[in-house]
């Protein structure tokens, strides 16, 4: 890793587990990644892959117990958030790092006007008082395209898209250095999603904010992010810049993921190539590579020993013994999987 890059967030060897009645859930295992200032990183994976747990770890919001960060460092501006004092953590949460949650219906306070909700944040983190805080709130609403005369309205008086704009206004009000957006548009319709993504991109560029975008939609990542990290069963499996990963995926899971999504360009009348089977039980991860039981390229060593992340091209990391090359073809297509067990 070259030192001349301006790295805002550097996660080193992070492991998080949940101690539940049915066993230890290894939610995140030895995760390494970093994010440069002003850039955005797409974080892709299925439900339960550990994306949200990683995001919550950055803010030190993993509930303990049952959750537990068992190892690693999370360096934000060079300082390990795990070693921060409570006062420092409070400044981090909502101040330097803010979060946009998936569901704007539940992340806003239903009995406060939207203006008051932004003002509250500004008073807490920017040290603005009274009229100055109120002005900042109105300015933020205007920035996200909400007319000032609606500032005194309550969340239920807004549509889903407008509510998500309010959440974005709150997230940006304190000029954070990092935004964590957890599925910010999943609850929205596609035309509204396009509006919101356009807005996030524009604001991110004008405010020079970094973004960690959690999503399962590869299309959104392609249109919004600079780099992308693919997660599977608590492990980062591939990590590269957008262009390299989309044109030349190296991990079989990434290839399978691309196959499984119908797009507006995919040929009509063909079957979708699916990844056989289901993600593993997180309390009982398979020996070796966790994707090996579902991998059509798997060799005996894959079931014995995990490979670990390695850089096979500059900036392109993959956790696979046999990274794909353009000559590998596509085994998901050659052997259409039977879904029934």
């Amino acid at each position, binding site marked *: 890793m070259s030192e001349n890059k301006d790295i805002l967030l550097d996660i080193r060897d992070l492991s998080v587990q949940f101690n539940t009645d049915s066993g230890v859930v290894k939610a995140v295992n030895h995760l390494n990644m970093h994010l440069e200032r002003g850039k955005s990183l797409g974080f892709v994976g*299925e*439900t339960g892959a550990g994306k949200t747990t990683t995001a919550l770890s950055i803010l030190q919001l993993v509930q303990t117990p049952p959750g537990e960060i068992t190892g690693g460092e999370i360096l934000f501006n060079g300082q390990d958030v795990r070693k921060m004092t409570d006062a420092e953590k409070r400044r981090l949460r909502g101040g330097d790092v803010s979060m946009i949650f998936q569901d704007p219906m539940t992340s806003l306070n239903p009995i406060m006007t939207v203006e008051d909700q932004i003002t509250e944040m500004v008073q807490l983190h920017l040290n603005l008082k009274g009229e100055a805080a109120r002005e900042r709130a109105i300015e933020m609403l205007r920035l996200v395209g909400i007319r000032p005369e609606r500032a005194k309205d309550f969340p239920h008086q807004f*549509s*889903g*898209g*407008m509510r998500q704009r309010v959440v974005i206004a709150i997230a940006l009000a304190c000029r954070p250095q990092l935004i964590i957006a957890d599925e910010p548009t999943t609850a929205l*319709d*596609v*035309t*509204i*999603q*396009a*509006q919101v*993504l*356009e807005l996030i991109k524009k604001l991110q560029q004008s405010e020079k904010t970094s973004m960690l975008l959690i999503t*399962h*939609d*590869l*299309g*959104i*990542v*392609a*249109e919004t992010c600079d780099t992308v990290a693919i997660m599977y069963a608590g492990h980062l499996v591939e990590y590269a810049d*957008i*262009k390299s990963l*989309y*044109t030349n995926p190296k991990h079989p899971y990434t290839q*399978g*993921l*691309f*196959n*499984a*999504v*119908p*797009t*507006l*360009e*995919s040929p*009509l009348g063909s*079957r*979708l*190539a*699916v*990844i056989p089977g*289901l993600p593993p039980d997180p309390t009982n991860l398979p020996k070796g590579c966790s994707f090996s039981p579902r991998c059509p390229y798997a060799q005996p060593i894959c079931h014995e020993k995990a490979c670990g992340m390695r850089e096979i091209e500059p900036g392109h990391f993959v956790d696979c013994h046999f990274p794909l090359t353009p000559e590998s073809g596509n085994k998901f297509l050659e052997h259409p999987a039977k*879904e*029934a*067990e």
Partner: protein
Amino acid sequence: MTMSDNLIDIRHLKKYFNVSSGLLHAVDDVSLTIPRGKTLGLVGESGCGKSTLGRVIIGLIKETAGEVFFNGEDATKFSGEKRAEFRRHAQIVFQDPFSSLNPRMSVSQLISEPLIINKSCKSKAELDAKVAELMDLVGLASRLTTSFPHELDGGRRQRIGIARALALNPEFIVLDEPVSALDVCIQAQVLNLLADLRESRGYTYLFISHNLSVVRYVSDEVAVMYLGKVVEKADNSTLFRQPLHPYTQALLSAVPIASVGPKKQRIILEGDVPSPVNPPAGCRFAGRCMYRQEICTQQTPELVEVEPNHFVACHCTGHLVRHA
């Protein structure tokens, strides 16, 4: 007209709901046909009336006006045994397999419920055999017979929902966002299952979804709804290759593309979908449309055939065809 080519023929169907603020036009004068053995995709954003339309067609909600011809007979006039028979032939799979299954019933109880209610099996042995056959058909392992919904993942739960819909040998199935709650890999498995079933059993589907890529993948014909009205209908390849209604164009351009390289021109619509309560006269889309003319706010455009089997409800279609 006993055996029509169109299994489903909807004519001027309307469904209005009385709400405190007025009359909510959920489905407003919709006419559609679905040929036997084909899939009609119905797309639109939340609140456009697509789910209401699906439910009115199979008689789960009583229509305000209009007719639904099923096999050439008006299903809205059915009563008694005739109505029960229609209900057996027209089934629905719901969106959310987490809330549409009774959490206190096992997989076999859930699948046998429709068979027991309709007294389709004469003996316990016949019932068990039928349940086993259905589970096999939708790809559920027999070891799951005694499992409960909370023990299963979303994909398997949705397979139970599909098995329940197939239990009574229907001809027509409304699929109301059947894969929206599923992860992408599971979604692909369920889509393949639905395609296989249609091929082997000749079902006719109404596939309701907000996901354009999925609709494009499964449908023969596609209808686009906006605020209770069908604004465009065409066969699959035509609609996605050459959309003519300004709303369809905006909808298609809003879908994020999972590839790098030159980006297509994106149409960002201004504002939100207006309320379907007491909608104003004229075109429902006029307020957000960049081609708006004076006539658009005065007169409601009719769905007209602008080229063979391509229907568009827009006053400016002539203009759009030239620029497409």
